[in-house]
C-alpha cells in the first residue's frame, strides 16, 4: 500500500503539529527544532521528512546550516469546508481516469487488430486478382 502524503497525514501526529507550530513562527535549523522535543533527533528528522513530502515545510540551505521553513498554503486549502466533498469527487475521478486509460488501450488494440485483418484480406484479394489470367 502506498503511504498517503497529504495534509491530513501531516497533521495526524502531535509532534508534527508542534513542529509546524514552531517553524510557522520563524524558520529554524534541525538542531533547534529537535531541542524542543524529548524524542531523538533521527525521529525528528523523520517527521520533518514526512512534512516535506506533504508539502508543509521546505528546507533552505544557508552555509552549513539547513533551515526548516513552514509552507502553510496547503493548510488553508483543506481548512476550506468543502474540501472533503471535493476530495470525494477527486478520488472517484482518479478511478475514472484509470478506467478511461484502460478503455483507450483496449480500443487501440482492437483498431490495430482490425486493421491487420483488413490488410490481410486486401492482400489476399490482390493476390487472387493477380492470379487471374
Amino acid at each position, binding site marked *: 500500500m502506498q503511504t498517503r502524503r497529504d*495534509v*491530513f497525514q501531516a*497533521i*495526524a501526529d502531535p509532534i508534527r*503539529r508542534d513542529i*509546524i*507550530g514552531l517553524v*510557522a513562527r520563524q524558520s529554524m535549523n534541525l538542531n533547534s527544532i529537535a531541542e524542543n522535543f524529548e524524542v531523538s533527533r533521527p525521529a525528528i528528522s523523520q517527521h520533518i521528512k514526512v512534512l516535506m513530502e506533504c508539502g508543509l515545510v521546505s528546507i533552505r540551505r544557508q552555509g552549513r546550516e539547513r533551515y526548516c521553513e513552514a509552507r*502553510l*498554503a496547503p*493548510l*488553508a*486549502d*483543506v*481548512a*476550506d*469546508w*468543502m*474540501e*472533503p*466533498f*471535493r*476530495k*470525494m*469527487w*477527486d*478520488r*472517484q*475521478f482518479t*478511478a*475514472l*481516469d*484509470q*478506467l*478511461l*486509460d484502460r*478503455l*483507450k488501450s483496449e*480500443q487501440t488494440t482492437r483498431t490495430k487488430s482490425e486493421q491487420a485483418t483488413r490488410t490481410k484480406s486486401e492482400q489476399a484479394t490482390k493476390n487472387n486478382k493477380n492470379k487471374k489470367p
Partner: protein
Amino acid sequence: MNKTTLQVEAGKQELFIYREFDAPRDLVFKAFTDANLLAQWMNPCNMTMHIDEYESVDGGAYHFTHTDPMGGKHVFRGVMHEVNAPERLIRTFEYLNLPERGHVVLDVLTLESLPGNRTRLTIQSVFRSVADRDGMVQAGMENGVTESHQLLDGLLARLSVRNMAIPMG
C-alpha cells in the same frame, strides 16, 4: 495532473464541479451512462456500488446502492431526463436515506471536446434550497475525515491562519 475544482457560492442553491479527462468525449460519456463502467469508478469513500437499475435513455429510471466498509447501505435513485450522447446528461438525483423524501437534486452533466482528445466535464447540481446544497457538501465531512478536520482546526487556531485567503478550487 487533472484537478477537480468546485464552485460553491455562498447563499446559492447550486454548485458546479469541473474536471478534465485525457480521453475522447464519447468514452467519458460512456463511463457515465454504461452501468457496468459506472460501477467500476463511482465508489466514494471505499464503498462498493450495486446497481439495481440504470436505464440510460430519456425518461429511464436508475437506482443504486452504495455499501460502506461498516456494512451501511446508502440508497440513491432518480430519473434520466435527457441522455444526449455524447454531450449532455440531465437527471434527477435523490438520497433515500434522508429522514424525509423530496430532497431531490437536478444534475446537468455537460461534456466538451478539447484539443488533443481531451474532454472537459461540468456538473451543475441544482438543489431545492441552500440548506439542501450545504447539507450535501457537508456530508463529505462525515466520511472519516472529521477527526482530521478537528485536528486541523486546532492547529489553525494556534497559527491564526484561519483568515488566510482560501484558493477557490
